[in-house]
């Protein structure tokens, strides 16, 4: 690093733009915006993320603040000016990432829909995972092929499929592959083909 931190960078940028933006309103809009921006993120924690949408891999800077009750509040997400990929820029999706990050539309509790039912029922994690584990084992045992008709050892679970992964971290994806192959799955898929 050459000694200029991110906030200084913003200020330099704003000062340059300010010469142009000194407006007919009689005051410098860019400077006012910078002050407003600094007030918003003052005293906040600066963290780094990557945009969750396409595969360009734009870096994000996220600002959070600890509330008095110990909870964390997300204040702001913006493009990371240090990134050689996006140099601070974001598209409309990345620029609205705050609305994906925190949303009243999130599913917050496990939901169960029984066969033939026309509604969800809230259940706890224990109920859900126990039931899925039992289903998983039963389906695996029913559809497991240890040897094929030619007598080859194949050790595969034919009747269960796992698909996913273009939106979760690589480390999760690696673990998913490890677990699913260990359980004998051959139907393993993610977004690459579709």
């Amino acid at each position, binding site marked *: *690093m050459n000694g200029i931190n991110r906030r200084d960078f913003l200020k330099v940028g704003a000062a340059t733009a300010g010469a142009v933006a000194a407006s007919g309103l009689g005051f410098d809009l860019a400077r006012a915006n910078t002050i407003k921006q600094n007030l918003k993120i003052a005293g906040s924690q600066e963290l780094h993320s990557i945009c*969750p*949408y396409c*595969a360009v*891999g734009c870096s994000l800077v*996220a600002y959070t603040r600890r509330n008095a009750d110990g*909870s964390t509040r*997300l204040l702001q997400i913006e493009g990371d*000016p240090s*990134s*050689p*990929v996006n*140099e601070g820029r974001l598209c409309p999706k*990345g620029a609205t990432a705050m*609305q994906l990050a*925190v*949303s009243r*539309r999130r*599913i*917050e509790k*496990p*939901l169960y*829909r029984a066969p*033939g039912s*026309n509604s969800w029922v809230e259940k706890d*994690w224990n109920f859900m*995972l126990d*039931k*899925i*584990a039992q289903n998983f*084992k039963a389906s695996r045992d*029913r559809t*497991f092929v240890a040897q*094929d008709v030619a007598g080859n*050892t*194949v*050790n595969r679970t034919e*009747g269960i499929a*796992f*698909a*996913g*992964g*273009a939106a*979760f*971290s*690589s*480390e*999760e*994806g*690696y*673990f*998913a592959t490890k*677990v699913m192959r*260990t359980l*004998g799955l*051959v139907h*393993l898929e*993610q*977004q690459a083909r*579709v």
Partner: protein
Amino acid sequence: MTNHWRDLKNADLILINGANPAEAHPVGFQWFVKAKLDPSRGPGQGGGAKIVHADPRFTRTSALADTYLRIRTGTDAAYFGGLINYVLQNNLIHADYVRDYTNASWIVKQGYSFQDGLFSGYDKTKRTYDISTWAYETLPPANPGDTFARRDPTLQDPSSVFQLLKAHYARYTPEMVESITGIPKADFLKVAALVGEMGKPDKVMSIVYAVGLTHHTTGGQLIRSAAILQLLLGNVGRPGGGVNAERGHANIQGNTDHAISWEILPGYMKIPAPGQRTLDDFVAQSAPKKSDPNSWNFFGTNYKNFTVSLLKAWFGAAATADNDFAFNFIPKPAVNSSWISIFDQALKGNMEGLLLSGMTATSIGPDSNQVLQGLAKLKWLVVMDAFATTSSEFWRAPGQKPAEIQTEVFMLPTTHWIEKEGSFVNSGRWAQWKDQVIPPQGNARHDHWILADLFDRVRKLYGSAGGKFPDPIKAMTLQYADPLKPTFDELAREINGKDLTTGKQMASFAALKADGTTTAGNWIYTSSYTESGNNMKRRQGVDNPAANDPTGMGFYPNWAWSWPLNRRILYNRASADLAGNPWDPKRPGIKWDGTKWVGDVPDYPPTMKPVTQDPTAWLPFIMNGEGTGRLFSNSMVDGPFAEHYEPIESPIPNPLHASQSESPVAFLYDQAAGRPNRFGKPEQYPYVATSYRLTEHEHYITQHVPLLVGLQPQAFVEVPKELADQKGIKNGDRVRVSSARGILEVAALVTKRLGPMTVGGKKVYHIGIPIHWGFVGIAAERNPELAKHWLANALTPFVGDANSRTPEFKAFLVDIKKIE
């Protein structure tokens, strides 16, 4: 991508096919524009790079391009085939590169042929090729086991790859290109003249594509045709060059690398096949074979080292030399088990359970109505997601009868990207680490903690109740502080691998061993997390270009980490000539400085002398058996050269060979399963449809983001003005688009962006279909009646590319009518 986003600024010419980066990858597109605005780039005397956009629809990418070509969807192999023919006929290829760095000089054995649209070895009943004739003529072995190919460096032998290639593409005349693609001959020739300049060593072209090339029954070969052109022009391995897939999801690259994909193991090793009884059988049948004495065949040579290191990472102490390192713990699929196959097996009643994590089958398709039937035949479905999806809600989709659907459905709320740390890998192969910014909302859990907990419960059931082959389940390593909650850091270390003797993190995959003393969860990520720490966290970016981008080429080697070994441009030995000097001294990839290779991380032994100083030096493409770029390849199941075939549903017969119009080996799932095919004919479905994304949405999740729904509030299709006038459709009218599979009822956007074209002597129109809507999300909740038929993939056919089984989302036939 062979290259990376920032590298686009190094190009003189950029061909964009099957992609719309200005709208779908807007921030990445800045690097295209930078090339355009850089006077040192460009054909001729420079003055800025030129951009050529070939697409059925005039988009914002076209608006910023220098040339827009209206091309019929799915015909890019004819366009690239025409360019291949043009550079060959006019001797505009990079001759030295083609002779020394491609397999042009390899001799193909007798028996190979191509006639009337069929390569040798076709079996009509099985709809597959026996590819044994797509092979090289081998020399009598000097040493036992050698399978070296005969070569003719003059490239004159009629059986040489070069001469066969020339003959194959001679049919792709400018007139034929016009007849297939709809691109007027004069426009094509102007572009061909620009492309022809790119064979000069000091010029370089990039080809950029997206799912507009992959989503076809010929997808694999469309991309091969681009790669063949780039090899002929000497543009692979060079800054500003390459064949570059944009990719559409934040971590699609990372999780392809980690093999959440039926046919591979982490790091692109093949999944074992039935009949491979031992690890050595597997390696012998899976690893590339050396076909030239100067080929290093690095991947083939190390295949066993990588496999054993993976098995040691997964099965630890249970993987020993005595049990072939637990090779039999890895399942061996009998048949293709990819995306469409999952739903095909469900329709057949063979699939009992499905876990979907961040993927919604109903919307993704193809053939959403048939997918819904498949989901209803499952015993159980687990949806792991942060938001409701068209799959979690499938049982109450419009027209479904919940009481009749016996599938037990589990919706598990997961954390999303900003609630967890870990790496995302972009399409340029850069693994960039992200922090956990906020805690999980509600009771949401990380996807992998859910899987860890589920695995633990399944394992306990096998412990208490017994069951089928519990051995791997008992043996799987869980060396995490809390086995129910592996940390991202622990997993990143495991992926990198370690030396079991010293306990130290591996520094390079070159040191992985087959004796069980090393581990690597994914060999291509070895060096991402070394003893010096997590390299994916590095942040030396554009704040200080002089220090952080020492070559000035935009590599930024200490920003994050890219696979393999932090290399920013794949195959970069091919960026320099035989003596080790860059083809273009102003744009070096790597360079021999007299004692070592400098520049990017070399895709080559770092101190191996150039072949001009050491005749035993390896050829440049170290990962395959030839050691050279493959103009002719037997790794594709539908042909060693790319050929144009029509989409399964096409408005015209193939102008090249009407007797074999579509791909002879495209996989027709319904037909193979004994169900009716349901393909439309142009008489009933006269219009060509293609699907795509808008800037404001990303597949389906953005239906939950209010600002984005505000920007693009409801489903629509784009209809060409001339056709709309004929059909009495006005802007904003509701229309019904129908295919042989389903219907879509949405608003019409009448536009000049789509226009008529003439192909095979026939006037043809395209209908454009954005994919983003369904019966779930803010827009659908506001308009539940209107949203009943908003699934774009209700229209698409249940067919797959012969190689990859990718669906044909981008070319199918529809009709359109105004809803009165």
